[in-house]
C-alpha cells in the first residue's frame, strides 16, 4: 500500500470495547466488556464447527439437512444475484447498486425466520430478505435502473418497499406492529436498519414507541461496520445491542455471518413478539465486504487488511464446511447449485436488459389516490406540449 493510504488508515475496528476512553474525564462504563472480540451468539464457528449455545440451540434444534441445504442455496443464489447486479451496473444497465456482499447470513437467517403473515420493512440492501420473502429479484432492480421507485406490491409478499432515507422505516414497522396488536393477530413485524441508521432520531423514536405500546416488532440491525465511510465508532460509544436496555427491552448481538445463529436468534425474537412480549433489538455483527454502493470507493477510508480478515469469516464458506463435514451435502448438490446460480444470473441479466423505460406520462401517475386538479391540468399541458411536436412534423 502507498504511504498515503497508510497515513489515512483508520483505527482497527475488531474491538467494540474502545469506547468510553475519550478525554471527558468520565470513567469507562462497565457496560462495555468486550476485549478484542465482541461477545456474540454463535452456533457455527468461522471454520464451520457447530458449537453449543444453551439459550438458542432450541430454536434450530429440529433443523433438517434439507433445510440446511436450503439456507446454503439461498445464500449462494443471493450472492450470485448480487454479483450480477453489480456487473449490470458496471455495464451501464443499472444506475446504481447497493451490494449485500458479506451480509448473506444475516439476511437469509433472519429472513427465513419470518412467517408468511409477518411483515418486513427493509432498507435498500435487503436483497437476501427479499429473496426469502419470495419477491422476484428482477423486481428489485427497477429502482436501481431508474424505471420506477419500487417495483413490487408490498402486500404481495408482506415485504415493504425499499426505504432509502435511513431509519424512517423503523417507525413504519412500529406503527404496523401497533396495528397487528390492535387486530389481535399473532403476526410479527421485523424492521431492518444498519449501524449508520442507529443514529437517526426515527430509530430512537421507534424504540420508544414500540416499548411504550409493547409492539410486536423485531429491530434487526445489521452492523456491517461502515456507514459509507464512517466506522461504527462515529455512531456509538456502546455496542449497539445495548441500546435496547435503555428503552426497556432486550438486545442481543449475534454473529451476523453465521446463518444458523441469525435464524435462531431471529426466531427467538419473533416468538417474543408473537407472545406479546414486545420488541427486541438484534444486532447482527457482520461486515460490508464491498463498497457502500457502486458509486463508492472504500480504498479512500478503510484498509484492505480489514476486509481480508473478514473473508475468513465468510458466511457461505462456513456453512459449506459444516454441510461437508456433517455429510449433509454431496458434490452433486453443489454442482447443481452452481448451474442454478448461472441460470439465475442469466435470467436477471436478460430481464434487466429487456426492462422498458416507463411511459413519459408515468410522471403523473399515482401522485394521488383520489386525483388532484393541478396534476390533471399539468398532465394535459404536458400532453399538449408533446403533441405540438407531432403537429410540427405534420404527423398526428
Amino acid at each position: 500500500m502507498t504511504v498515503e493510504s497508510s497515513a489515512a488508515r483508520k483505527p482497527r475496528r475488531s474491538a467494540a470495547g474502545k469506547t468510553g476512553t475519550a478525554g471527558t474525564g468520565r470513567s469507562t462504563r462497565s457496560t462495555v466488556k468486550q476485549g478484542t472480540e465482541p461477545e456474540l451468539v454463535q452456533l457455527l464457528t468461522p471454520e464451520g464447527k457447530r458449537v453449543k449455545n444453551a439459550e438458542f440451540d432450541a430454536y434450530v434444534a429440529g433443523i433438517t439437512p434439507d433445510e440446511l441445504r436450503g439456507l446454503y442455496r439461498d445464500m449462494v443464489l443471493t450472492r450470485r444475484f448480487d454479483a450480477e447486479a453489480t456487473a449490470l451496473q458496471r455495464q451501464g444497465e443499472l444506475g446504481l447498486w447497493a451490494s449485500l456482499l458479506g451480509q448473506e447470513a444475516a439476511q437469509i437467517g433472519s429472513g427465513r425466520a419470518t412467517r408468511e403473515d409477518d411483515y418486513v420493512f427493509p432498507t435498500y440492501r435487503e436483497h437476501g430478505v427479499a429473496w426469502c420473502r419470495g419477491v422476484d429479484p428482477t423486481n428489485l432492480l427497477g429502482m436501481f435502473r431508474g424505471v420506477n421507485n419500487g417495483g413490487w406490491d408490498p402486500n404481495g409478499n408482506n415485504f415493504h418497499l425499499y426505504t432509502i432515507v435511513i431509519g424512517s422505516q423503523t417507525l413504519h414497522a412500529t406503527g404496523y406492529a401497533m396495528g397487528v396488536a390492535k387486530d389481535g393477530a399473532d403476526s410479527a413485524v421485523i424492521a431492518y436498519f444498519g449501524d449508520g441508521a442507529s443514529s437517526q432520531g426515527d430509530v430512537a423514536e421507534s424504540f420508544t414507541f414500540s416499548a411504550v405500546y409493547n409492539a410486536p416488532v423485531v429491530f434487526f440491525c445489521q452492523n456491517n461496520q461502515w456507514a459509507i465511510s464512517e466506522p461504527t465508532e462515529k455512531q456509538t460509544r456502546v455496542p449497539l445491542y445495548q441500546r435496547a436496555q435503555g428503552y426497556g427491552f432486550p438486545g442481543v448481538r449475534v454473529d451476523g455471518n453465521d446463518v444458523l445463529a441469525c435464524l435462531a436468534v431471529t426466531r427467538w425474537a419473533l416468538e417474543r413478539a408473537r407472545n406479546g412480549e414486545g420488541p427486541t433489538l438484534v444486532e447482527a455483527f457482520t461486515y460490508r465486504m464491498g463498497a457502500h454502493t457502486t458509486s463508492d470507493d472504500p480504498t479512500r477510508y478503510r484498509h484492505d487488511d480489514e476486509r481480508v480478515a473478514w473473508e475468513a469469516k465468510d458466511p457461505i464458506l462456513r456453512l459449506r464446511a459444516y454441510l461437508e463435514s456433517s455429510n449433509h451435502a454431496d458434490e452433486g448438490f453443489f454442482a447443481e447449485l452452481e448451474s442454478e446460480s448461472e441460470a439465475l444470473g442469466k435470467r436477471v441479466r436478460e430481464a434487466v436488459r429487456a426492462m422498458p423505460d416507463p411511459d413519459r406520462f408515468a410522471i403523473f401517475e399515482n401522485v394521488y389516490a383520489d386525483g388532484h386538479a393541478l396534476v390533471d391540468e399539468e398532465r394535459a399541458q404536458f400532453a399538449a406540449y408533446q403533441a405540438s411536436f407531432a403537429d410540427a412534423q405534420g404527423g398526428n
Partner: protein
Amino acid sequence: MAEKMALAKAINESLRRALETDPKVLVMGEDVGKLGGVFRVTDGLQKDFGEERVIDTPLAESGIVGTAIGLALRGYRPVVEIQFDGFVFPAYDQIVTQLAKMHARSLGKVKMPVVIRIPYGGGIGAVEHHSESPEALFAHVAGLKVVSPSNSSDAYWMMQQAIQSDDPVIYFEPKRRYWDKGEVDPELIPGPLHRASVVREGTDLTLAAYGPMVKLCRQVADAAAEEGKSLEVLDLRSVSPLDFDTIQTSVEKTRRLVVVHEAPVFLGSGAEIAARITERCFYHLEAPVLRVGGYHAPYPPARLEDEYLPGLDRVLDAVDRALAY
C-alpha cells in the same frame, strides 16, 4: 338537526362520528386522550372509545407520523394531532419523504389515508412557535392535500371528507376561531372538499382567503360596503388543490383580486394564486393581484402580532390600492 356549536366542538363531533362509523379510524397525538387536547378538540373521545383508538403518544412528532404511516399500511385510518403549528417540523421528514410519496412509489398499490390536524395561525397572544402558518410548506409537496376550514360547518364536514380521503390530508385548524360558533347540520350533503365557496357576493373586487382570514375578509367587505364598494369574498377552503376555477369566475366578474393569508407573503399561497390568475384572467384584470399577509420575518412576539397579522385596515388599504388602478 342543525345545531350551533363552536368550531373546536364541530371537529370534536366530526371525529366522534368517524370513530363511531369506521372501526379503522384512530385518533392519536400528544395529550389527545385524558386531557382531550390542549384545545379540548378531542375532549371525551378517549373516555368513549378507549385508549386503543384514542391514543396518547410519546412526545415525538416524527414518531407520531411515522407510526401513523405504519398503521395506515396495516389498514387503519389515523387522524393525528400535531399540538401546534411550530411543532410539526420534527415530523416534516416523515410527511414529505414518506407519507406524500408512498402512493406514487408503490405504483398505486399502497394508499395513505392519514389526516394530520394542525392548529395554526396567530392572534391568541401565544409564545414563540405557537402562531405560525406553514401551509405553503405542505402545499408545495406533491402527494399531500392541504385544507383549512373557516367555520363550524366546514370544520365538521371537511374533517369527514379528509378522513374518507385515501390521500394524506393536512388539516389546518384556525385556532383563533376555535371558539366561534356556527350551525352544523349532520344531515347535510356537503360539496366537494377542494371546492372554494363564495361567502359574499360583490361586483367591484374579490377577496380570497381561507381559515382564520375569511372572517376578517367578511368584516372588510362590511366596512367597504359602508363606503359604497361591493366586495366579493371567497373562502378557498383548500390550499392544495386550489380551486382556480372559482377564483377565475369571480375575477372575470370583479376584475380585481386581493389575496389574504397570515402566512408570509413571499412565496406564499397568494403568490401562486396571483401568478395563475394573472395567466388565466390577463385581459380581465384592471389591477395587479395584490397580497396581504405576514412579513418575511420570524413570527413576532405576541405584543407585536397585531402589526404583523393582516387586519381590517391593512386589507382595506390593499382594496383601495387595487381599486385605484
